[in-house]
């Protein structure tokens, strides 16, 4: 059943934040709402949790209209970007607090036991007797999460909980979350501007754009089949590359002709992309990791089927074994990922081969996905 949201509207002053948003979150999923800062993710979460009221529209939990149900009577938890804990209570009292006011009338022992268990699970059992201001940022946030989890809410809302944490800690918690929540029945609704975080943890992802969810789907589906340009550009680190090309069809082959005359084969051998019209402009998308960097000799013997793209290197960033190449092409900034360092200086012309089976074709006007070549590896539903 889960949470269903219908036609949600909200504005602050003259600024419309949500404009008729619809959403379905199945029970037991880890659902990420992804969007840049200021797009209304926080508002959406707050309305769903019942902290804020909407201007219009309805939120259902398990099919029940929640508009008249007070927050206290909902089985929800919330974790904020700032580490929100009760400053005057110790970590232990913080954790115990939701249980003490619960109408289930827990006994002292039960409360203690659950506090210990939860603290152990989130690795904060060593700081139970400290005040929140005495612990590190990571521990404070774990405390906030523990307090949200301890009463085993049906729905847990998390609003960029990792944003204010150190990089390494974020990596660690991201991994912990994925494990923790795949074992719990709690449905998690997670807001983040970081595509990477969402992809790492979620089972489902929704992309919020101009007040609506323009796509919400299981994680692999939205990553491998981004239905429109904004989703394609956002969900990926670095983002998907997009170039404009015109479809040309002649007696022997079909190909996209780019502005600089490069031809990208339109999969004649496999019969892909049937629904395209010759003479039209398309946005052709491909992921940076699908661009294969060709060293000098490789370029000469590139695979016959593959398309070769020539671009000017603007800038290289090498982190560990991966180099991110910033490329200037047709007035746009494109990216390519390469395993291993690239020894070339800015301004050098580089060649890349591209598998025509891994292209995404978008309508140049509407921005809608027309065809995608990349296969979806598996649709694991958790």
């Amino acid at each position: 059943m889960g949470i269903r949201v219908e036609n949600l509207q909200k504005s602050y002053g003259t600024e419309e934040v949500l404009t008729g948003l619809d959403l379905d979150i199945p029970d037991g999923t880890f659902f990420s709402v992804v969007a840049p800062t200021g797009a209304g993710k926080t508002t959406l979460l707050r309305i769903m949790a019942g902290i804020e009221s909407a201007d219009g529209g309805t939120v259902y939990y398990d099919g029940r209209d929640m508009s008249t149900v007070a927050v206290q009577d909902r089985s929800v938890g919330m974790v904020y970007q700032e580490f929100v804990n009760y400053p005057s209570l110790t970590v232990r009292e913080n954790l115990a607090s939701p249980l003490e006011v619960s109408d289930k009338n827990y006994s002292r022992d039960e409360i203690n036991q659950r506090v210990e268990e939860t603290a152990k699970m989130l690795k904060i059992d060593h700081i139970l007797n400290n005040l929140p201001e005495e612990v590190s940022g990571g521990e404070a946030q774990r405390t906030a999460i523990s307090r949200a989890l301890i009463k085993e809410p049906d729905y847990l809302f998390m609003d960029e909980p990792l944003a204010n944490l150190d990089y390494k800690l974020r990596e660690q918690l991201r991994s912990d979350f994925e494990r923790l929540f795949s074992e719990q029945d709690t449905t998690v609704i997670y807001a983040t501007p970081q595509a990477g975080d969402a992809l790492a943890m979620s089972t489902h992802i929704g992309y919020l754009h101009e007040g609506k969810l323009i796509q919400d789907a299981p994680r692999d589906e939205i990553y491998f089949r981004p239905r429109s340009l904004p989703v394609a550009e956002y969900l990926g680190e670095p983002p998907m590359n997009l170039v404009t090309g015109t479809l040309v069809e002649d007696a022997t082959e079909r190909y996209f002709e780019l502005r600089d005359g490069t031809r990208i084969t339109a999969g004649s051998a496999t019969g892909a992309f049937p629904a395209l019209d010759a003479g039209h402009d398309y946005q052709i998308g491909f992921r940076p990791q699908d661009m294969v960097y060709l060293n000098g000799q490789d370029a000469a013997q590139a695979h016959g089927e593959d398309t070769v793209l020539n671009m000017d290197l603007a800038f290289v960033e090498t982190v560990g074994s991966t180099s991110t190449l910033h490329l200037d092409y047709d007035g746009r900034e494109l990216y390519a990922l390469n395993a291993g360092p690239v020894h070339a200086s800015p301004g050098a012309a580089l060649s890349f081969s591209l598998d025509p089976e891994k292209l995404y074709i978008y309508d140049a006007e509407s921005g809608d996905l027309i065809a995608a070549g990349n296969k979806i590896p598996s649709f694991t539903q958790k």
Partner: protein
Amino acid sequence: MKKQYYLILFLVLLMVPIYWMLNMSFKPNSEILQQLTFYPHEFTLKNYQEILSSEFWRSGYINSISMALMNVTFVTITALPAAYAFSRWNFRGDKHLFFWFLTNRMAPPAAFMVPFFILYSNFNLIDTYWAVALAHCLFNLPLAIWILEGFMSGIPKEIDEMAFLDGHSFPSFVWNIFLPLITPGIAVTAFFTFMFSWVELLLARTLTNEAAQPITVTLTRSLGAGGWDWGVLAAAGVLAMVPGAIIVYLVRDLLATGFSMGRV
């Protein structure tokens, strides 16, 4: 640090008049009137004795303290929910209402003394603690709302939301979570309310006669009476400063927190 000498100089100048009064309070009238001495040559506690043994002066202190405490109670109880409303919710006209409250802080007591007198006469409240305690709400309530609103706005709204999400009812949230957090704010508010009530003269004088006359009024009346008992007057002035000092001492830690987190 050279610039700190200026501060020290100012602090010294600040203390001179106070020292003069203190100095006077330990002198007999003869010494006061006859010669200029920078410390009491004939040290005496007679002035203090006279005050502490006189019913007239003693009741002045008791009246003052009772009125100020009553006023603090009224103000704190009403200002807390109002400040909460201003700090937590946006509602139509909130800014204007807030400004209107503040205009009452601006209101000159002199402009209100006549209607106050008539109003309280009609309820037979003249010369009771009630009259003065209620009248002082005129300027203390806005001040209290203003200070408390500052403190409350410094506490993230998310704390409230967390508490409600955790299942706290509103009273439980206020009692267990919110009040402990706002204690410094309440202390600062109570301090200022008490002080302003304690030092006010005009309304207190208008609304009281013999029975409920606070110390400030006693002081001016005895001054006007022409007795010119300077030693006693100085001693009374020194004693009038004592309650303020005691309160500051009691809430000094909270005041420090208050100064750093709120507006004053």
